[in-house]
């Protein structure tokens, strides 16, 4: 059964590879590149102006609403994926009608949300 799990191995290897590549490049670069930060250089770039305050301040609430709608849709998508995957099978068995009705009901509820 560990054989069946092997399909996840490339995922881990790729992630490890990315990390190694990143850290390695930074380390190699450390040997090669100059390092002499000055006060001006390390200040945030604001077209030469001296920055006022920090950038971590309030933002428009609209961003949050976008994220909110997104997460709801994301979750509904997660719900619909398995149903979508078996939909064709049901149709071939001649029982597509009820499943289609369920799916349409689901989507219509979703549409109400977006129309809101």
């Amino acid at each position, binding site marked *: 059964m560990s*054989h*069946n799990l*092997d*399909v*996840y*191995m*490339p*995922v881990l*290897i*790729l*992630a490890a*590879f*990315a*990390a190694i*590549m*990143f850290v390695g*490049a*930074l380390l*190699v*670069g*450390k040997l*090669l*590149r100059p390092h002499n*930060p000055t006060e001006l250089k*390390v*200040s*945030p*770039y*604001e*077209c030469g102006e001296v*920055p006022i305050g*920090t*950038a*971590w301040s309030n*933002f428009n609430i609209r961003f949050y609403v*976008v*994220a909110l*709608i*997104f997460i709801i*849709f*994301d979750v509904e*998508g997660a719900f619909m*994926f398995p149903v*979508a*995957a*078996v*939909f*064709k*099978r049901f*149709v*071939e068995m001649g029982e*597509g*009608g009820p499943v*289609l009705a369920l*799916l*349409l009901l689901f*989507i219509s509820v*979703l*549409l109400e949300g*977006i129309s809101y």
Partner: protein
Amino acid sequence: MNDTIVSYLAQAPGYSLAVSKISEILGFDATGLVTFLVFGIAVFIVVNVMALVGGLGTYAERKISADIQMRQGPNRVGPYGLLQFLADGVKMITKEDVTPRDADKTLFFVAPLLALVGVFMSLAVIPFSSGFTLTSLNIGVFYLLGVSSLVGVAIFVGGYASNSKWSMLGGMRGASQIISYEVPVTLSILAVVLMAGGLSFGTITEAQGGLPHQWFILHNPFSFIAFFVLFVGALAEANRAPFDLPEAESELVSGYHTEFTGMRFAFFALAEYIEVFVLCGVCAALFLGGYNVPFGLGSGDFIIKNFPAVHPMIAKQIGNVLQLKVFVLKTLALYYVVIWIRWTLPRLRVDHLMTLCWKYMTPIAIFNLVGIAIWIYAFEGKSMLTLMASALSAMAGSGGGH
């Protein structure tokens, strides 16, 4: 199901022999080790090719833009300036690594790493050919969605960590843009899943055929629209023009990576270019037939049938190489279109961007989804052209009867 490159290689007669040989030499069961090594080598190849593609992507981008704008483009380093990206890489690695004074040091380190990890992990399921797929997870498309949303987190964190107003704005915009365009993309992919009846890239690709009329893009009218929704959404997700608002250099300096220098910036850029490739590959696999080669060339049947002298295994290999070529060709064609669009269209305004997504693309995508569901139910999954052909033959038959 769950095909990997290892299971493909294991079909070859020499594989189990080699495994048993190695087990004998090492004195323990080496199956796991060999699997690991094969995966490691395959990953190494894929990553290097992808890095090359990313590098050549920057070159192609400049060259094509120069072509469109009647300029020369890079032409100094190597023949036709082909080695420009190497020069850029050397330049990047020798640049000073500046961390801004007020930055969040940890997150400043983590952000490009997250972007890179997210993009690399999405490489695992790209179906290059029927044999050479790193792993064909049976949740392929869904996994891809999840992993690619890591890039959104990376962009946000990158913007946040720099503690610069330009970066923060860029990061905020980038994250909200990516997540909002993920909705139409998800819905379009759902439509494909409905048509294919499976989540893995293998299933989806096998459900299509080699010739254009067997592709999902021409399956029915709704899927034709769905392809464009997916493509535009993919453009927006990869922050490409005309949706490159997060890095709009005329408004935001350089967006979320304003403060990133040297290699960190290079990794962000590399991640972006590879992501474009991945998304083009996904579009090609989902709608344009993926690695399918017409006339049964891909599986080697054609060669086996017509040239019996050729060993079936070799025929299969030839088919695989052809599949690889077809897939890469489709992807690169889409890549060209992406670059072409970038240098042709102006940038959208931020409110237009959100309006486009929520008021047009998402309803269109939902409409598509419903349409495709009804289509499959009504016509039992037959494609438009099949129906037309059968209708035509029926008409011809009735016409002949008269």
